[in-house]
């Protein structure tokens, strides 16, 4: 298998002052960058800030990546918001609504404990998804806030307005400021693409290595461009690019390179 991966430290060593670099950035990098509870937060922070200081970096991505980041942020902001309702002394929530948040909070805390135990036992990182309510749980709570008559339906909408509203919209603007969305139809990006993007190829990539569809869509897009680098936390993407895109280089944290080598040894 081609060695198409490089660690953060080694990559930074190759970058020259003022150099222009095009990189495709994966959703997990943005998630880790903006969630301080994420295990890789400090490492990603240091790497991205250092890279940005040295070079002129164009962070390319896809709209699928943007939706993944925003969805993570939606779950995170709603989790904090809903949990804070239990602490607000001026609120007299209906018992059913209070009980539902309490039940879901209990489930989340149990998951969190199990994940912590697992990570300690296996010497692995904590998956930050366990820190927040699942989408199905948010829907459960939403039902407990649905009003019986239409005049008073504003309950859930007020929760969304306070905890998501303008925040999520501004977060989208910030992602838009940082990233450039790859599109073979934009004239200003014609020079980046070396062939047409055929979505059937994404299916073929997924079928070949069994990787998730959103990642195979990224990989398919990368293959149609002249961009050499993909920045990710996902060893699965390293594996799939070694199989389907050996001429591209995957930049991952140094620690993950070691983990990936251990995984390969086990195969």
């Amino acid at each position, binding site marked *: 298998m081609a060695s198409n991966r490089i660690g953060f430290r080694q990559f930074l060593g190759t970058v020259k002052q003022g150099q*222009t670099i095009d990189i495709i950035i994966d959703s997990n990098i943005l998630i880790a*960058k*903006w*969630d*301080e509870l994420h295990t890789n937060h400090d490492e990603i*922070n240091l790497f*991205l*800030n250092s890279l*940005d*200081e040295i070079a*002129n970096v*164009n962070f390319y991505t896809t709209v699928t990546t943007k939706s993944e980041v925003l969805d993570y*942020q939606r779950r*995170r*902001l709603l989790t904090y*918001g809903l949990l*804070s*309702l239990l602490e*607000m002394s*001026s*609120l*007299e*929530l*209906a*018992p*059913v*609504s209070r*009980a*539902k948040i309490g039940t879901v909070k209990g489930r989340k805390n149990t998951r969190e404990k199990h994940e912590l135990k697992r990570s300690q036992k296996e010497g692995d990182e904590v998956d930050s998804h366990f820190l927040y309510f699942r989408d199905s749980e948010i829907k*459960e709570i939403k*039902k*407990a*806030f*649905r*009003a*019986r*008559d239409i005049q*008073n339906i*504003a*309950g859930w*909408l*007020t*929760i969304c*307005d*306070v*905890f998501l509203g303008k*925040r999520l919209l*501004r*977060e989208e603007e*910030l992602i838009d*400021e*940082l990233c*450039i969305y790859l599109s073979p139809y934009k004239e200003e990006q014609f020079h980046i693409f070396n062939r047409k993007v055929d979505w059937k190829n994404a299916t073929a990539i997924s079928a070949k290595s069994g990787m998730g569809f959103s990642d195979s869509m990224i990989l398919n897009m990368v293959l149609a461009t002249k961009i050499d680098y993909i920045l990710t936390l996902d060893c699965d993407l390293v594996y799939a690019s070694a199989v389907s895109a050996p001429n591209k280089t995957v930049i991952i944290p140094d620690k993950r390179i070691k983990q990936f080598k251990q995984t390969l040894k086990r195969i």
Partner: protein
Amino acid sequence: MKKRRSISEISKEMDEINRRKPTANQIEELAEALNKKHYEPEVEANVEDGFSIDKIASSKTTKDISGIESNRI
């Protein structure tokens, strides 16, 4: 090349949004919309057991002779 602020500046604003707490006005709005004297939650019994009426109904959707869909519980 697209013009943007540095990634640390963008992230600083992102962190500020993530840490933001509701204002006094927003807490008042929440109280007005959520306090139990103002509203009654829907289908209490079904919410408690985590299984809503519409979930049962949608799984039992059938068509009658005229081809119109009906929900049987």
